[in-house]
């Protein structure tokens, strides 16, 4: 059972409240910081929200606890003018799952890469860059992976029109 030990580490770096809302955006619900979630109906055991600049620290915590990277993905919260990046991790022995979230403003979608910690993050970040236009600073090869090599569009943004 890795979760209790992880909780205190994450609490130290968790986001203190939601980022300041952009003018004109809908009011955001308060973001849970470090939340135990029932595996049976959420599929994850721990839900953590960290500031975007601390995702590398969060990935190091997961690496030290010997978690496996599951996936990285984004969610476009158009009404709140924010993009969310979700990192999913699994422990191969206990089966515990941790989701780490970070929110970034839509007009400056940048956060650091974790591909130097988890090699598998390289492709997941490229895919997230393809779909959402999120820039992972320090990524060694942030070129289109699934989209055509000259693609300038980001199809999973909610304001995307074909």
């Amino acid at each position: 059972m890795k979760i209790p030990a992880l909780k205190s580490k994450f609490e130290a770096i968790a986001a203190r409240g939601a980022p300041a809302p952009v003018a004109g955006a809908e009011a955001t619900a308060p973001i849970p910081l470090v939340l135990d979630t029932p595996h049976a109906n959420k599929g994850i055991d721990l839900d953590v929200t960290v500031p975007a600049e601390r995702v590398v620290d969060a990935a190091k915590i997961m690496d030290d606890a010997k978690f496996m990277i599951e996936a990285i993905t984004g969610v476009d919260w158009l009404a709140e003018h924010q993009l969310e990046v979700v990192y999913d991790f699994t422990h191969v022995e206990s089966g515990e799952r941790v989701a780490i979230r970070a929110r970034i403003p839509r007009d400056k979608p940048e956060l650091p890469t974790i591909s130097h910690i988890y090699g598998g993050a390289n492709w997941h970040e490229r895919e997230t860059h393809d779909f959402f236009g999120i820039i992972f600073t320090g990524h060694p090869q942030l070129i289109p992976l699934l989209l055509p090599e000259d693609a300038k569009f980001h199809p999973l943004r909610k304001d995307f029109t074909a």
Partner: protein
Amino acid sequence: MSTDAQSVLNETFVLNLGPQHPATHGVLRIKLTMDGEYIVDADPVIGYGHRMHEKMGENRSYAKFLPNAGRMDYVAALFNGHGYVGAIERLAGITVPERAEYIRVITSELNRLSSHLLWLGAFLVDLGGFTPLLYCFDDREQILDLLESVTGARLTFCYYRFGGVCNDIDDDFVAGSRKFIARLRSRMPMYDAFVTKNIIFRKRAEGIGPISAEQCRKYGATGPVIRGSGIAYDVRKVEPYSVYSKFNFDIPVFPECDCMARYKVRVEEMVQSMRIIEQALDSLPTGPVMAEKVPRTLKPAKGDCYFNVESARGSFGVRVVSDGSENAYRLKLRSPCFSNMSLFRECSEGMLLPDALALLGSLDLVIPDIDR
């Protein structure tokens, strides 16, 4: 040594493997930088079969996305369907009748057998042995007939629904499954003599294509790849879903980390799948195969959840975010082949090209599953 001679020694060339190549089993391209027969760098170029399933998940209702699920990993389509309906059932709080869960396990495991049989034949073709393919396809054909009788399809199954399955299985299916298992079991010693003990195959597979347990963890490689590296990670055991916790079965693990270990994992898994199917057929409960009162148009409450199944290739995960409407706000499909492929660049460095092709074959890639 003169600088001219030095530059000749350092000379490398770029070799395109694919996008049309028999060993890639689909439209996969690998940009190889070669030093003679040795790989200096292998950069996979993917996305040729990209269809943006995740966007399709957002612009149609939950039920209308069901056929899409079977078109990612088309060799083991039922698992994708299981992962998708499982995620939506978890989000919407739908309870599935027990008989339907048993049917899901039986059909999924049959699909795993057919997928592994196809892999076995194709892997041997990659290594230059053609004949096993014919035997494998003969066996696989029996499974497709069985699944066709109940799902109506032979490849891109769309059989699971939110709350159950769309058709009940009948006595013919049960009898046919038992007959098939007896047949496949009697043929396993033949495969063993034919392939496992074949010295040419063993020279091509033993000690070739090492993938360490640490690499699996860093890249998220799952399924037979991680179990061939000595880690007993199987979603069916580690986080049991459906009714898998009711059956006795083992998770085959081999610590050698090579192509042979991944081969042995899959062959042993076929034996275990047969065990699961037999137990499920023996204890098949009666009752409905669909939950009552599943609304025609699903509108799960706001929120998100994650659901994983153990597909034939590893952990297939679905993250679904709902905003309360009849379409998903976000549907993330985590495919096992994507993660298994991503470690190829690191693992193939310094390998001989023919050995790298053995490694590629042992990963059991389905390209549309990578590209989605």
